[in-house]
């Protein structure tokens, strides 16, 4: 049986166009290669 109160928590407001810039800047772009380079740097 669907629990509406629980299910509604799974929905989140969408980003509006005005908020796109902040979302882009705040995006964590750290990837596996960055981590690898970090590890190599620490190793050296």
């Amino acid at each position, binding site marked *: *049986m*669907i629990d*509406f109160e629980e*299910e*509604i928590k*799974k*929905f*989140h*407001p*969408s*980003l*509006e*166009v*005005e*908020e*796109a810039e902040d*979302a*882009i800047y705040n*995006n964590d*772009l*750290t*990837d*596996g*290669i*960055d981590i*690898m*380079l970090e590890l190599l740097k620490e190793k050296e």
Partner: protein
Amino acid sequence: MKCYKCKAELSSSDYCTSCGADVKVYKKIIKSSEIYYNQGLAMAQMRELTSAADSLRHSLKLNKNNIKARNLLGLVYFEMGEAVAALSEWVISKNLQPTKNIADDYLSAIKKNSTRLDAINQTIKKYNQALLYAQQNSSDLAIIQLKKVLNLNPNLVKGHLLLALLYMKENEYDKAVKPLKKAMSIDKSNPLTIKYMNEVKKVVDVSEKKAEPPKKASEERKVFVGEDVILPQPTSYQESNAGGITVLNIIIGIAIGAALMWFLVFPAKRQAIAEENNKQYAEISGQLELKSTTIATLESDKEILQKEKEDLEKELSTYKGKDGIIQTYESMLVAMDAYIQNDSIKTMEALANVDTTVINSEDFKKVYGEIKEAAAQEATRTLYEQGYNRYRNGDYQTAIEVLAKAYEIGKEDAGVIYYLGRSYQRSGDSETGKKYLQEVIDKYPNTQYASQAKDYIKN
């Protein structure tokens, strides 16, 4: 594949031939990123967009510079109706690779159509408002808002899901089927879609509705192919001729309005007029019925009055005329006056005019009887004497008149009848005389008058 350190082209070796850097792990990361990208692409081709997005995000977590994966992720987001998320990915992609990037085309296409961008923004605002309504338990408002949103952005999967959830909350499971199917047609692997659909299937027979022909747009969705250029699919809203659509909408609106007028307003108006006419007809019928009843009552009253009039006239006639009550009383008064004067003959003449049938008084009848009894005896004797004297004098005609009066009084007297018969014989009317003489013989057989009567009959 280029070296992360010197940007030289790498060979099959685990070391960079240019700078000697160890690229074994680097190559594995890049290859893993590519594997995830391929996986995401395959899933996107099968319209398993949620799974595709997950794979592509994994790909980008390994290698943020995987432009193909990022652009495809943006495209997947756009296909799911998440326009801002798509724009974000394409903007990042453009920044990471400013040239020879297909994301540039995507962004340009959107920027060129400011109306489309405004529409996207409005859609997002309305969706957020609908979500707020839903969180505040204003399901009706949320549903209305979501319908508007999905009309503008029919690919917004989470909009369909929220709409389905609201329908399920309102126990309208049959209505939840349509948005869930739409969501499923856009994204087959969305776990919420699958979960809600399973719930709906417990209540509604969804299989029957599967017979509905899929929409052409869904069938004609472009299949993602490899790493080649993938353009965002313009929706009907975007590509439509706005002017033409507006005119068409106006025409459709007018047609719907006319149809509503014809099927709803006119029948209602006609029904109202018919009801008014029926009401007036009923009122007039009621008035007519009332007047008919009044006429019938008046006619009945007239008949009653006519009968009463006739009865009164009849009653009045009993008081008037020769046989009337008034006349009877007058005759009675005359008789009583004559009786007081000892004039028995006049008393009997007056009593002959008294009709005792019109008088109901017992006292009247008693007085009438006593006077008549007393006067009759005396009148008979007096008339006999007068008649006999006329007979002796030979005046037989006068004797007949006087004796006939005595006979009519009714008192039994053999002499009166005898001399009446003899008077007729002497006057020449033998037959009438014999009739009276025979009466004397019959009524008084042992008298002298009877024996003499026999002799005169023989002669």
